[in-house]
């Protein structure tokens, strides 16, 4: 086992899968010579050639449409959206077309592709380099949505996503890229899509999160542990399909639920998790479900004060959990 960063784990997963299967290729802006703006594809063009690591023209709709068309022909494209904020020009191909292809052809045309996107804020990215875009894809049947937060999960899940026969939106939180490090096995492994992971066992309350805020939840849980509150932290890892069984099991055990995410609160993943618990674990709940999420402003702003005010930090999460525990 070696300690690696999230970006290293992502790069290794792509590299190993490209080596394993000649159908896998990468297409995106600056992914070739430069190796991507975050260096996720560094060295791959040299190793696999420009035909499998394609520097695309600066046009997201065609990056997505071309990847989709290549998937029709049995390739396993990995289109990279340079920043999730720039996915919007390609959303017709992704939500409009790719998500509907299998269903609209009665299963005749599978879409094995992984759409990688660095997303999220806390890096002074302002309105157009901080966006949380997951809810739009989470809401779309036909897409799978994966949002890991550790190097181990990122590598294992990305490898599974590449082998999956469906369009998988693979969300990589930018702030975790170099900040979060962890052990990654040297030997080959994959992790199943659709399985949440209990990142911290606890008995008093359940907090469900994913991405960057999962780490903030772990910090908050430590704070509360010192105060005698035993918090279970559940990392969704996959948003779609949602691991309802693991969520319900934890909620039934603790009787208290908080959902935490950076994305806007209204209509977000947390709302769905809350509805799930209210609908299927109502009798087990000892307190109203808490949502500690990004507020309903378009994105996290640029100024430090405003960015801080937006972000569900560990302090804000701890405060929310304290209230929930005391109810």
């Amino acid at each position, binding site marked *: 086992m070696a300690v690696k960063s999230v970006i290293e784990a992502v790069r290794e997963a792509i590299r190993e899968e490209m080596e394993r299967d000649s159908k896998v290729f990468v297409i995106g802006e600056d992914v070739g010579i430069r190796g991507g703006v975050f260096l996720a594809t560094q060295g791959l063009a040299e190793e696999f050639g420009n035909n499998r690591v394609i520097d695309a023209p600066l046009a997201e709709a065609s990056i997505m*449409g*071309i990847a989709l068309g290549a998937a*029709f*022909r049995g390739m396993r494209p990995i289109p990279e959206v340079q920043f999730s904020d720039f996915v919007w020009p390609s959303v017709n191909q992704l939500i409009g077309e790719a998500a509907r292809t299998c269903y609209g052809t*009665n299963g*005749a045309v599978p879409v094995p592709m992984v759409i990688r996107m660095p997303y999220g804020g806390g890096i002074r990215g302002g309105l157009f380099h901080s966006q949380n875009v997951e809810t739009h894809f989470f809401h779309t049947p036909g897409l799978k949505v994966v949002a890991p937060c550790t190097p181990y999960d990122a590598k294992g899940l990305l490898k599974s996503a590449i082998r999956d026969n*469906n369009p998988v939106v693979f969300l990589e939180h930018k702030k975790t890229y170099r900040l979060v490090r962890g052990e990654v096995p040297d030997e080959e492994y994959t992790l199943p899509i659709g399985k949440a992971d209990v990142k911290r066992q606890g008995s008093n309350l359940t907090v469900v999160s994913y991405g960057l805020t999962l780490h903030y939840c772990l910090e908050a849980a430590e704070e509360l542990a010192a105060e005698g509150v035993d918090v279970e932290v559940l990392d969704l890892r996959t948003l779609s399909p949602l691991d309802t069984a693991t969520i319900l099991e934890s909620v039934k055990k603790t009787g208290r639920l908080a959902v935490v995410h950076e994305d806007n609160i209204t209509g977000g993943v947390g709302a769905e998790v809350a509805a799930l618990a209210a609908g299927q674990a109502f009798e087990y709940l000892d307190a109203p479900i808490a949502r500690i999420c990004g507020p309903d402003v378009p994105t996290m702003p640029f100024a430090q004060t405003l960015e801080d005010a937006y972000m569900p930090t560990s302090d804000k999460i701890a405060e929310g959990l304290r209230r929930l525990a005391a109810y």
Partner: protein
Amino acid sequence: MPRKPTTRTRANSSNGANSQAKLPKGLKASDLVDYYTRLVQARSLDERIWMLNRLGKVPIAASSQGHEAAQLGSLLAAEKDGDCFLFPYYRDLALKVAAGLSPVQVMMSFMGKAGDPYSHGRQFPLQGADLPHKIIQISNVVAAGLTQSVGYALACRMAGDETVVLVYFGDGATSQGETHEAMNFASIHKLPVIFICENNRYAISTPQSAQMVVEEVASRAASYGFPGFTVDGMDLIQCYEATREAITHARAQGPVLLEMMVKRFMSHTTDDDDRRYRPEGEVERARERDPVITFARTLIEEGMLTQKMVDEIAAETLRSTDEATDVADVSSPPDASNLHDSVYSP
């Protein structure tokens, strides 16, 4: 091929030699008779579908009447080549029928029955995929198929295939940004894609003049550095020849834009009434060059068909349409339990 867009005219069209000498390259007389038959079958189904719409049995239809020569001429070239893949659009009824579906399958699709070969009754008629006939059309979102077709061609090249991809769209679709993106990428990578614009000078009610200032869509090819041609889309043989040359060019050198000038004989769809926006007499004048009539006339003149055969073909195709209508009408719709199937692939 010259780089400059040109307007082609059909070679040898008034040559008085015997029929063999006048056959376009790569074709036998029987090919043309076969294609005439497919054309008449497609027209017969197309007309019946509109009637069935008025009877409440077909929810929606877009007609290819007036576009058939372009669709079948290019299809004939693709079939003769033997290694082409097609990305048609919603107006390509004749193309999809002629590509090999049975009249019963066509009617099932229009009536939303379980036997719909494209999507099992999930989509608008003849939309989805007909892989046995090498056709994919995921949606009717205009121009969405263009970048997909380019990606398909890219994948074929990666897999070591020689496949040429033909992608079809209307004049209105050329205004979409993705049309530009698709052509630009195809040209950078010299991909074997033939962009076929069926230009009927209307996008629903919007005339070409409100869509673009250029006269010929084909002139845009110059800005991508590949050849573009405008051809008479009412002339099946001219469309065949242009596509045939384009296939050869595409495989060796990269994309081609073929603009086929056609006439839309019907309203945009069964939900539209074109009397609101089309000048009186326009459709009648257009129908003077109805490909069903002009193609028959050419084949009779060249001794490949007789009036008797024309009458027999008309009767035979009509019988098939009648039969198909009856069979599809009483066939089962998809079971409601099917609603949840194939959201994801295994």
